[in-house]
């Protein structure tokens, strides 16, 4: 029947054939897209040439003519470090503040979210006020507020630093802590290896305790025993090998403390502002996740005789996590991207020293902005990948 109608009808002209038409339109669209991109490219190149601007990656090998102050892991030497080093330091500092921020925001956010659901009126109102305050004020304003109005104004100068036992110092320039220095390399390695062995021991202990609980129902205080192992065993190794690691204390010089481990005030302010701000959003996400768990689950758990802490830890939170994680990923990505507001308080992260100073001193806008975009893209995709993997692991297994 169907074959009949096609063979008998007059042949469709090719330009009326929907398949051919679709193909032609697709091809036209492709041409337009390619042509637009090509035009953008050639226009850019022509305009740059007209203005005598040379673009390319050559400048990466040039020596950076300015100084970078904060770089805990990559050494910056004025007059020797190149623009490439500045780029790496920028990435390093972005990762440092994002990592610290994500950890703090998650912990704080969880506490706030659970507090908001508390049956205690006061506790839940405190959490509500916190969320409504921090969530509704622009982040840049908060960063400026903490840095200029609170920390810089209230902390004393280097000479009047607040100190904790003359080893940890806090002043308007930042936080200064003792830094571990290796005195005997072999000894230090032994301590590290013993530490790792202790960690593996703890994992084995945890597995054993879990198996025993599954089989016999007896629980074992894994946490406190592991903690004891993790502290005692490496400490013992440390003294047996004859204290291979010493400490370098920060020392007050003419202007400020030198030596030791330093955390500039800008990092501290930025970290503080980013975590408190993002925690408000994570708190709401956590609340939403917990409320998504059917109330029957809580009741059933209570009926089994679990107390409120156990109900949360063993029944509600594991089920809430699968609702919490996807939106939490967005918050982590936001925090990473928001760290680019650092320039307001003089923290030297990627946008500040790379697409800020380096761009201005070299004029290589195209290359530098493109590199910056790629870095953020990679950081975001990596964060997403890790958390998506975790999310996949904790999803409900449907049988």
């Amino acid at each position, binding site marked *: 029947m169907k074959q009949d109608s096609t063979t008998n009808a007059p042949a469709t002209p090719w330009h009326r054939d929907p398949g051919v038409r679709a193909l032609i*339109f697709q091809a*036209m*669209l492709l041409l*337009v*897209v390619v*042509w*637009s991109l090509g*035009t*953008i490219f*050639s*226009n850019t190149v*022509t*305009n*740059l040439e*007209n*203005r*005598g*601007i*040379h673009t390319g990656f050559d400048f990466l090998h040039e020596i950076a*003519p*300015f*100084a*970078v*102050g904060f770089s805990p892991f990559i050494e910056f030497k*004025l*007059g020797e470090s190149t623009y490439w080093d500045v780029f790496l330091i920028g990435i390093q500092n972005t990762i440092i503040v994002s990592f610290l921020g994500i950890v703090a925001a998650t912990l704080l956010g969880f506490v706030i979210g659970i507090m908001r659901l508390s049956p205690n009126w006061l506790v839940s109102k405190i959490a509500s006020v916190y969320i409504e305050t921090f969530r509704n004020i622009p982040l840049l304003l908060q960063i400026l507020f903490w840095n*200029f109005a609170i920390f*810089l*104004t209230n902390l004393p*100068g280097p000479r009047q630093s607040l100190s904790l036992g003359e080893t940890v110092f806090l002043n*308007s*320039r930042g936080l200064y802590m003792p830094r571990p220095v290796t005195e005997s390399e072999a000894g230090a390695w032994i301590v590290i290896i013993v530490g790792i062995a202790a960690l593996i021991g703890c994992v084995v202990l945890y597995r054993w305790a879990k198996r025993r609980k599954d089989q016999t129902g007896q629980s074992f205080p894994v946490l406190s025993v592991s903690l004891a192992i993790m502290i005692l065993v490496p400490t013992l190794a440390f003294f047996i090998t004859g204290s291979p690691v010493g400490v370098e204390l920060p020392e007050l*010089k*003419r*202007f*400020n403390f*030198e030596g030791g481990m330093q955390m500039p*005030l*800008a990092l501290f302010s930025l970290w503080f502002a980013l975590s408190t701000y993002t925690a408000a959003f994570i708190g709401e996400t956590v609340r939403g996740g917990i409320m998504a768990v059917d109330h029957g689950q809580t009741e059933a758990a209570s009926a089994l005789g679990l107390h409120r802490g156990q109900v949360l830890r063993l029944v509600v939170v594991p089920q809430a996590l699968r609702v919490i994680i996807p939106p939490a990923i967005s918050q982590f990505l936001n925090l990473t991207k928001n760290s680019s507001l650092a*320039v*307001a308080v*003089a923290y*030297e992260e990627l946008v*500040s*020293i790379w697409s*800020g*100073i380096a*761009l*201005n*001193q*070299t*004029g290589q*806008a195209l290359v530098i902005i493109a590199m910056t975009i790629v870095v953020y893209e990679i950081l975001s995709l990596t964060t997403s990948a890790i958390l998506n993997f975790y999310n996949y692991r904790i999803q409900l297994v449907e049988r």
Partner: protein
Amino acid sequence: MNRLITIALAAGAVLIGSAATAGTLEDVKKRGHLICGINNAVPGFSAPDDKGKMQGIDVDVCYATAAAVLGDANKVEFTPLTAKERFTALSSGEVDLLSRNTTHTLHRDSALGLNFTYYNYIDGQGFMVKKDLGVKSALELDGAAVCIQQGTTTELNLADYFRSNNMKYQPIGYETAPQTRDGFDKGACDVLTSDKSQLAAQRTELKNPDGAIILPEIISKEPLGPVVRQGDDVWFNIVKWVLFAMINAEEAGITSSNADDMRKNSKNPVVRRILGVEGEMGRELQLSSDWAYNIIKQVGNYGESYQRNLEPLGIARKGSVNDLWTRGGILYAPPIR
């Protein structure tokens, strides 16, 4: 689908159009006002007064250019730019002219595709410290934390100076001048470094100006002046000669108050040429014949601009580099003829 194609075609057409850059002079005339990139936060150079009008020797160049090109000094739209944004804003065509205390260097002149016209202020970099540190010379600053504005030549001079004197420093880099000053004021650093004229202005805005001193060293040459895009010679000539006209007017003794009188009665050929009574100076720049008269009448000569903007900050001019060459300075404008 069809709509998509239309959009794509339109986008393509726009992009092709922008490949050819029209002359800045025609653009400004067609638009009816000049777009000038400025700082807006440095008293004496560019900052709003208590009535909200921009004042300063940098913005006077903008007013003067508008007066020369459009006949009305007030036809200016200001775009405040940070040190980091300024060159991209100029080379992308967002502003017609950049008059934002910008130092002339080889790199900027060549690799950034810019043209420096002439200098409206010749400066040098210095240091300001809190008095209670007891520092008397910049050579005692080893290990200090230094507040600095990002993306400036100041940043580079600082690095050079500390490097050549074998000293270390901790840079605390802010984006704008007010943030940098605030950082210094609240103790985020020991030292504030900038051009000396700016330090004088910044000092007046500290909570306690007497608690800070400016150290004697000058560590760099900072010839500051208006900048235009490379590749538009007509516009380059106009901005250059706007500045020269202001300086020449001072040399010839023409001021905003006597310009009308001199235009009518002066027999001096130099004055007559500047004021457009004689010669074809305006036409050669593709401007009207009264271009320089408009500048002087509406904005004033260079000396008047300096007197109005910088003298109140206590930056004396007499005998300094910024005085006319006839009085011991190095301000030297080529003749208008």
